[in-house]
């Protein structure tokens, strides 16, 4: 039986209450909006890109604890990374939360706290919403991203 504490780890609760990089950076040159119609979660991810590198990143919006903490920790993780690196981290994160592979837990660092999400399949969309939105912002897509 899945345990609630595996999902709602302290780090996740803490980030959901005090999200990091909860702002629109002054130098924003890319942004995208993400929406999960299932629960109404809605986030905008802002990027200040310097060539292929994420110089600054922020997000704003409303959502559940999982989606907000995921967005917060994502911004910490990808800041300073290249587009390709951010993409690779998302792939590994996606594998982790969908339960496809836990091999990358060490590599994912703090993001490994989301491994409990794999026991709650309906919550995978919450954990990945900000990441899908980041991908859209990186690709410069203008349309709203939906997880449905």
């Amino acid at each position, binding site marked *: *039986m*899945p345990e*609630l504490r595996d*999902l*709602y780890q302290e780090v996740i*609760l803490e980030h959901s209450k005090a999200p990091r990089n909860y702002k629109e950076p002054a130098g924003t040159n890319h942004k995208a909006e993400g929406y999960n119609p*299932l*629960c*109404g*979660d*809605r986030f905008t991810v802002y990027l200040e890109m310097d060539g292929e590198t994420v110089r600054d990143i922020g997000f704003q919006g*409303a*959502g*559940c*604890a*999982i989606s907000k903490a995921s967005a917060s920790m994502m911004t910490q993780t990808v800041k300073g990374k290249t587009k390709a690196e951010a993409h690779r981290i998302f792939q590994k994160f996606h594998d982790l939360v969908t339960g496809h592979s836990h091999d990358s837990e060490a590599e994912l660092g703090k993001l490994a706290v989301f491994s409990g999400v794999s026991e*709650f399949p*309906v*919550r995978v969309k*919450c954990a990945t919403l900000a990441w899908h939105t980041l991908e859209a912002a990186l690709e410069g897509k203008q349309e709203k991203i939906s997880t449905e």
Partner: protein
Amino acid sequence: MSASVATPETATRSLLDVEKVRADFPILATRVHGQPLVYLDNAATSQKPKAVIDALVRYYEHGNANIHRGVHYLSQLATEEFEAGRRAVQKFINAAEASEIIFTRGTTEGINLVAQTWGRQHVGGDNEILVTAMEHHSDIVPWQMLCEEKGAKLKVAPINDRGELVLDELEKLIGPKTKIVALTHVSNALGTVNPVKKIVAMAHAHGIPVVVDGAQAVPHTIVDVQDLDCDFYSFSAHKMYGPTGIGALYGRKALLEAMSPYQGGGDMISSVTFEKTTYNKVPHKFEAGTPDMAGVAGLKAAIEYMQSLGIEKIAGHEHDLLVYATERVSALDGVKIIGTAAEKASVLSFTLEDVHPHDIGTILDQEGIAVRTGHHCAQPVMDRYRIPATVRASFAAYNTRSEVDALVRGIRKVREVFA
């Protein structure tokens, strides 16, 4: 809320023998995550009693054949059963004639049928369709589609902070351009019971027909379409202990007869040549194709089941639970009840400080408690209260006060997790 209510020890005022009712529902023996199932998502769909499940099995084991066309024994039997189902629905909502009952896939299809037939025939470019701010998406989108096609305007009657229609405002919105008034009998997101009869009278004073979404009303109240005097009334079986995929639309006979068919196909015609097709009489004109005969047998069994319990007794029991739950849940720190209308049925929608309803839903699920979390297909209602979502507990005949207590313990657990 009355202060005299209540503790779990207080004898329930209900005349229902709830333990006996519970024994009629096989699914209630399910355990979820090691806990007894506490099913409080009845506004989404109710569970089904053995009598309904048996009716479906009996149909397939002993009664299956296509209707209205065979001369053989089983076809005649199936036709008789199907038409007996129609008469059962007629009596259930007190329609004047059985031919005023059209079988549909559910409430949504019934509303779409009216929009695509009466609506397309009568709504023009400078017309308006009036809905209310508490409608389910299924009573907004079909009208929006019609407005888009015809260039007509959708008008929205406002609600107050308690979640009640502001009748003065609604009446002002009915004018010479209005062609249809569409509203819900009971709000799925707020639980509000609307004064349908009064609103029908307002619309009829201007000669405007009224379409009622009865999905949330039929499980909880005695519906009398002649007393309401509405022109169309649509509902689903699955929210009133019946099977999924079947519902009924009531339409006033004179309107139905003047309406064009909805879909073309078998059963809705009386003769077909490549030059000309003559349509069947009502209600068959609106029932193209082989219908859900098993579903109708199940719907009939659901009606009989509700009547065997007594709809007034069901309503009394649910009201008792709603009052008890409202009092207990609203006493918890940080809880805000969304929808506090004077007239409410069976729905308790709430938020808990800044804990997102989806997180609450996951934690309650771990306790075996099924509630709905989200916007309940009523996004405009959420926007009205400036919230993204609510937690919704909704009650049926088989729910108990101790299940409300489990809900209260579950909410306390949410607070512990998010402390």
